[in-house]
């Protein structure tokens, strides 16, 4: 009975956490940018969640978050829905089968996930229709810096979900 209650409470807290992080990210009230590096906090949360979750749950969390983000950004045409779902699935599968879930491995997976997202973003939106200079400026000044900065934000979420896993 106690196990069921804590598990339900954790599910509710996780859902609230996702809603708040998504809303804070899309409204942009708190500016966490350092020069051009923008932390993709939603991806950090999703990565941390996928580290401790099942492939199906991770994929659907990625899909839900992606559809929400597509509704707030222009011209993405479902990019976030597909890419976040696949990245979330990738993180879950690699952490369960290839790496383990210690902090170092999790940070490496998170960095890989963030770099993958920003490289795909660049490939979809900045290769075609942009000059080479503009395209490379985005990749170097915005993409890579944001990917590294995003990986830093995985830390607090990693500890939250690790704590949740212990409770269950």
């Amino acid at each position, binding site marked *: 009975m106690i196990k069921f209650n804590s598990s339900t409470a954790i599910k509710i807290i996780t859902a609230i956490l996702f809603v708040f992080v998504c*809303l804070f990210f*899309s*409204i942009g009230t708190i500016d966490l940018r350092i020069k051009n590096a923008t932390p993709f906090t939603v991806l950090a949360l999703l990565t941390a969640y996928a580290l401790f979750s099942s492939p199906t749950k991770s994929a659907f969390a990625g899909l839900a978050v992606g559809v929400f983000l*597509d509704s707030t950004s*222009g*011209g993405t045409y*479902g990019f976030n829905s597909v890419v976040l*779902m696949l990245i979330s699935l990738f993180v879950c599968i690699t952490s369960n089968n290839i790496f383990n879930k210690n902090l170092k491995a999790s940070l490496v997976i998170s960095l890989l996930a963030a770099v993958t997202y920003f490289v795909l973003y660049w490939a979809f939106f900045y290769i075609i229709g942009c000059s080479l200079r503009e395209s490379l400026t985005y990749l170097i*000044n915005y993409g890579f810096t944001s990917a590294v900065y995003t990986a830093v934000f995985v830390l607090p979420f990693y500890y939250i979900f690790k704590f949740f896993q212990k409770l269950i």
Partner: protein
Amino acid sequence: MRFFFSSKQFKIIVAVTLSIIAIAVLSMLLGSRISPQSDIIGTITAPFKAAFTHLSNSVSDFVSVYKDGTKTQLENTELEAELNELRQQMADYEKITKENEFYKNYLEIKENHPDFKFVPAYRIARDNLDPYKSFTINKGSLDGVSANDPIITNAGLVGYISEVGLTTSKVATVLSPDITFGALGNRTNDSGIVSGTIELAGSMRTKFFNLSRSCNIAIGDYVVTSGEGVFPAGLLVGEIKSVGSDTYNTSIYAEVEPFADIENIREVMVITDFEGKGGLNAEGGSK
């Protein structure tokens, strides 16, 4: 892992992915329309986003008033309470004053341009990963907003509607290279083209280029729309902050800082109709 790839859940994930890709391709073919899944989610989540934006704006307003007022330490708790109450009133008063100013300024624009039809809107979300600061407003096709409608604030031009949904719309700002429109220097009437670049977007500026080498443009001049492109003539764009010549030294360009505070925008006006509407689209092509 092998079990997962042969599971029913995995097949569902593949089906969902393929359907999203199919919808995305269809949406791209349709053009300036928000994709159906984004439109549905955008419509459902719009009230929450609006409520959250309103709440966070109120908190940041209150905090800024509080920060400005507490330079000296107050010892008397009664006085502190009274002061807090007054601050709250002050915040409310400032909000009302701002709102009045907002509408007064639009009234002036309306007087100068009687052909303009406005729809007031406010920002409910922004695309934080977009270096060109695009954002979402709480008005869509149900409110008479259509693709390519200009967006202004009382300070000046902000951008245009890049995608329109039922109850929300996406705004591309003047910092974006997707926008190209004709503009004039207010003092010299030198004409050129305004379009954003990724290098200037970081410093919240846009580029005024293709200016003749004999032009007399100078730092401090204002840039206004010329009416070529998607925007009506006479809208204030920004102030010239620097002037230079292009790589091959054939023409002059200037860096322009928009008058509208694009980074911290809250309320905007959509110009849904004006004289001469329906010329070129925002990218500079014909409609």
